[in-house]
């Protein structure tokens, strides 16, 4: 095993025992980036000099025996999380040269923990997409099959972990953007409860749905990242002032007596048979470990995609009004009229999917349509939340596939936005209800593509999710399989 292949918890042991330095680990990761990046394109911006400086300070701390679990660990950060002095593009032409003057709160926390930043990860423009093909800086390829998408929108964050171009990464999840790419790339991705992690410095897409979370090589690392980034932040008034548990302490192989809910609606028409059989096999494995399976019902989940593609674009159309060519970012040249300058700037600065969603959002909020679309969707959102409340009165966690199919081919769905939206069918309800959700590998298709199992729990019940995920992972070997890229 090379250093770049190891999860953070293993590297931490080696670093603490001074069997390796952060400098060596970071150099090993940077060499892997050099080998892989031409084929994967996981990063928009690489920061090798910054990484080596941070590795040196981490080594100084570790020398004194002061290292924390992330001290000296190389991470990738999705390129919509603001990093002071390092450009933050959101995968968009309109922010192509934007250099934030402050750090997101999660970045401040990771810096204080002594983490090392390898670079900024590729993504669908403004996190709008499920394939990372909507990046202005070009698509990312799936390390398991370079002709396929890595999922999205946190496709760069997922591919960088799967290709060992970093040890772990941060992504953001508005409708599945951490979990679906984690499933496509065969890694672990956790979307925390809405309010668990500060959104300060996260460039806003849909503010009532967005949440930052980790993408990691295994479940133990997800717990470590969660320990580092969770907690109330006065700078984000939607972050919740609750004590943060030690998520690592929740990892237990024992899930005897836990009740796992299987939604009756989860094997919908159009689900890939290989996905269905891998997920059903995972249910059996968990049952053998002593958990009890019960059937539950989420009758309104079939409406979730329609609700989401009203609410998320509505919030986005408002959030993205700030890109007007005045305060920061790109401005169209040669304009002598203010309105024309706004319109040309936004026409040239945004890609097709972002414009489509701004149009959709503006339309559903406009006079005469607000009631029929936005208000209606917000009411159905209530019904979806109530379904979950009822389900969680009967079980500890819910299990579903993460995505209806393994990773699809690059270009396959670019001209059919509705088909692209439907790839989020299992991940979206969780965001609408503000719940935590995790995806972890539960098998492979015959073509060798990873398949993800999704675990959902009630608000602030990440520990239950981690416990089930850890027990499953410790009794299976899917997470140990690596893509063969040589």
């Amino acid at each position, binding site marked *: 095993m090379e250093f770049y292949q190891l999860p953070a918890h293993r590297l931490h042991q080696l670093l603490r025992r001074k069997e390796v330095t952060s400098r060596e680990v970071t150099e090993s990761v940077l060499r892997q980036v050099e080998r892989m990046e031409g084929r994967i394109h996981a990063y928009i911006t690489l920061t090798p000099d910054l990484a080596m400086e941070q590795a040196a300070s981490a080594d100084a701390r570790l020398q004194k025996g002061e290292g924390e679990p992330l001290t000296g660990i190389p991470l990738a950060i999705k390129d919509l999380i603001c990093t002071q002095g390092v450009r933050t593009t959101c995968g968009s032409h309109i922010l192509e*040269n934007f*250099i934030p*003057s*402050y750090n997101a709160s999660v970045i401040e926390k990771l810096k204080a923990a002594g983490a090392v930043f390898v670079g900024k990860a590729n993504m669908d423009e403004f996190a709008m997409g499920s394939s990372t093909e909507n990046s202005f800086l070009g698509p990312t390829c799936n390390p398991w099959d370079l002709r396929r998408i890595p999922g999205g929108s946190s496709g760069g964050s997922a591919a960088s972990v799967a290709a060992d171009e970093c040890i772990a990464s941060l992504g953001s999840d508005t409708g599945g953007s951490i979990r679906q790419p984690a499933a496509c790339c065969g890694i672990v991705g956790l979307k925390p*409860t*809405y*309010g668990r992690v500060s959104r300060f410095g996260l460039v806003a897409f849909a503010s*009532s749905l967005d949440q930052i979370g980790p993408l990691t090589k295994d479940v133990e690392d997800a717990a470590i990242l969660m320990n580092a980034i969770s907690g109330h932040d006065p700078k984000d*008034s939607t972050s*919740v002032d609750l004590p943060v548990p030690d998520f690592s302490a929740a990892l237990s192989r024992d899930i005897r007596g836990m009740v796992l809910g299987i939604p009756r609606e989860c094997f919908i028409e159009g689900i890939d048979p290989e996905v269905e059989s891998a997920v059903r096999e995972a249910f059996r494995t968990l049952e053998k470990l002593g958990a009890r399976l019960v059937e539950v019902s989420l009758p*309104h989940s*079939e*409406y979730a*995609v*329609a*609700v989401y*593609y*009203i609410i998320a674009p509505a919030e986005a*159309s408002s959030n993205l*009004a700030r890109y*007007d*060519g*005045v*305060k*920061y*970012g*790109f*401005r169209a040249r040669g304009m*002598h*009229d*203010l*309105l024309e300058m*706004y*319109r*040309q700037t*936004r*026409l040239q600065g*945004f890609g097709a999917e972002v*414009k*489509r969603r*701004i*149009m*959709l959002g*503006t*339309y559903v909020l*406009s006079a005469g349509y607000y009631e029929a*679309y936005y*208000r*209606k*969707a*917000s*009411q*159905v*959102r*209530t*019904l979806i*939340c109530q379904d979950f409340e009822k389900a969680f009165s009967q079980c500890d966690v819910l299990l579903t596939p993460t995505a209806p199919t393994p990773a699809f081919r690059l270009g396959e769905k670019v001209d059919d*936005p509705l088909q692209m*939206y439907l790839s989020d069918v299992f991940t979206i309800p969780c965001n609408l209800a*503000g719940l935590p959700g995790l995806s972890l590998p539960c098998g492979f298709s015959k073509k060798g593509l990873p398949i993800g199992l999704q675990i959902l729990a009630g608000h602030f019940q990440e520990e239950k999710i981690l416990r089930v995920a850890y027990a499953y992972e410790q009794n299976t070997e899917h997470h140990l399989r690596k893509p063969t890229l040589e």
Partner: protein
Amino acid sequence: MKITREEVEHVALLARLKFSESEKERFTTQLNTILEYMDKLGQLDTTRVEPTFHAVSGSNVFREDLVKPSISQELSLQNAPDGDNGFFRVPKIIE
């Protein structure tokens, strides 16, 4: 047809966007497909259902009105496409 080409033009103005003729055509078709899919929400009776705007209940957050360090004028303007003497510069607004 849920949305006409004229409505697409109107919404584009509201959203401060502008499209070529072929883009207008494409957006009209695509938005219609998506909006037709949204019709399924009409199957549900929601007359007595309260809307949800935030899934995790919260209350308004107040804080003391204290002066704290903030981003300087210089830093605030560093990403502006055009500026002059501490101001943002834009095309002329008043004729």
